[in-house]
């Protein structure tokens, strides 16, 4: 069984690496959470891998996110990771937020992770675009077929006229409680306390409740993620109001793919698409 394979391999890896990152079993088996193991006992006691491992582990990996004491003295960590999470990690590696040589990625075959609230596979699984498996440091278990035979980036609102789209978002975003879960669940949002939406000087976004500000927050996020978003779907999964935020990721990724022939985390370029450095000549 896959979990047993992972357990056995994790126990081997903990000798070689300072930390093993995977999921831990919680008292509700349908709600495992991310875990950072440093010894065999805790691996044996807690490590799990099942069809509910929904969180994107990449959100914990950028150096900006590594501020717990468990990272002290951790030179190298092994990460058991599924395709969508690894795609996010590859994008972060390209942006130099994750140092490639400090992590050992083990690709785990995934047939989709269920949403514990509905018992169904979310739409992100049905639109799975896998990164190049050769990018993994190693693989475990038997490879499985991609759920979606021809995954495409489709914008579900494409057939609507602009004011219909606006109406749709105004209705949806009236439910937004500005909890920031979409931002915190997103692996790309690592600006932490420097986030534009929280800035006071200048004050781009007030603490006011009006719809304008809720729309503006999503506009900022979508634009800042353009060319970086890997459609992992965590924003939508995290949202307590059930707002279909993945429509924004799909729309943005679709436009980027069409204009630049670029899929972050999949297309290989010397530099990430929209993050050019100041060197004349830029990227390839």
């Amino acid at each position, binding site marked *: 069984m896959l979990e047993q394979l992972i357990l056995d391999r994790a126990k081997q890896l903990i000798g070689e690496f300072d930390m093993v990152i995977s999921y831990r079993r*919680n*008292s*509700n088996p349908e*709600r*495992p*959470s*991310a*875990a*950072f193991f440093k010894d065999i006992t805790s691996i044996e006691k807690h490590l799990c891998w099942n069809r509910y491992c929904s*969180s994107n582990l990449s*959100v*914990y990996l950028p150096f900006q996110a590594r*501020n*717990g*004491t*468990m990272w002290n003295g951790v030179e190298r960590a092994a990460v058991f990771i599924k395709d969508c999470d690894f795609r996010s990690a590859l994008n972060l590696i390209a942006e130099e937020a994750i140092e490639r040589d400090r992590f050992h990625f083990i690709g785990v075959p995934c047939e989709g992770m269920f949403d514990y609230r509905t018992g169904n596979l979310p739409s992100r699984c049905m639109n799975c675009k896998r990164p190049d498996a050769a990018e993994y440091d190693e693989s475990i278990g038997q490879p499985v077929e991609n759920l979606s035979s021809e995954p495409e980036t489709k914008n579900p609102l494409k057939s609507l006229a602009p004011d219909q789209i606006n109406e749709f978002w105004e209705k949806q975003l009236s*439910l937004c*409680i*500005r*909890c*920031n*879960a979409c*931002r*915190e*669940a997103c692996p790309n949002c690592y600006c*932490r*306390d420097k*986030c534009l939406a*929280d800035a006071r000087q200048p*004050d781009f976004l*007030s*603490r*006011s*409740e009006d719809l304008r500000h809720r729309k503006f927050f999503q506009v900022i996020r979508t634009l800042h993620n353009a060319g970086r978003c890997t459609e992992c779907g*965590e924003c939508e*999964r*995290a949202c*307590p*109001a*059930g707002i279909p935020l993945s429509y924004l990721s799909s729309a943005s990724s679709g436009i980027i793919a069409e204009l630049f022939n670029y899929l972050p985390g999949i297309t290989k370029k010397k530099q990430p698409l929209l993050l050019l450095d100041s060197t004349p000549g830029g990227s390839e």
Partner: protein
Amino acid sequence: MTQLFLANEKVGEFLSGFSKIMKVFAPINTVSPSFEEWSENKQYFPGKTAYSAKNIFFPQYDELLSIGFNKSQQNDTQININSKNDEFSPRLVFGIRPCDLKAIEVFEKVMSTGAYRHPGFQKRLEQSVLAVILCPDKHSGCFCDIMGLNRMRVGKLADLALTPTSKGYIVHPSSKKGTEILNSANLPEPSEKWQDDIDKSSANSPVNDHGHNGGMTSRLSDALFNNEEFWSEKTAACLGCGICTYVCPTCHCFDITDYNFGSFNVKRLQSWDSCMFYNFTNEASGHNPRKLRWQRYRNRINHKFNYLPNKKDISGCTGCGRCVALCPASVDFRGILSSATEKQNE
């Protein structure tokens, strides 16, 4: 004791009737059910809401003052300050649960006692008629009993208490305000055998306490405060998003900011803050004593289970379970609190 009967199919009519003479708040069926102002085109939600009722007494965005600047003939530097927090109209708050009601008691402790009082909260509460629906059994995800709450006991702040049966609610008043409301409602008497019909349908959904049925202290000490390793490790999966604080019925931290909306239209806005946010304790000097996520999570647990119980003699948690249900990273504070209890007793 007066006991009257409100049939399920008459709830809408009941709420609409009162909405003609006062504001009415009730649980509304949406993607994430929550308390909204009642109107006839909305659908009443009979279960436990996804968000708490605190928005009714403690709005997420509350304009405390507006400051305008007028040039008049007599005085061309006339400054007008208008406070919106003086007058509130009567309102019926229908359908809160014992956990929500207990949380209002916590708010009262914090906002209405001591040297500093929140002007808007107490006035809103005074104008409210609280109609609480008792819970014959727990809903999925609830752990109010572990937090010391008796689900069928009518809390001291309630004006009306409703016991759900399969056909409707048995309503009885528990205050003078409640009696007055009930007198004007024109409800029939219940059938004789209503006690046999108490609605335990919520018990059919698996009440998964998932093994968390004890081992949590109601008063955490300061013993573990400086144990960075403990807090860091236990809260490693937390994303610091703020959902838990926003859906929690007792969380009350707030921010006050002044905004210039242009044309000399300045507003002082109070808004919900969250100890999960980076800037929660970001000080004007630039120093931030809780810059790291584990420090902020430690604060959350201590605020509810250490500072409030030890300083104000009331628990900061009513066991509604919303934070556990909605956490995107599946962090369950009960596990952390159990470990803390065990560790502090070592």
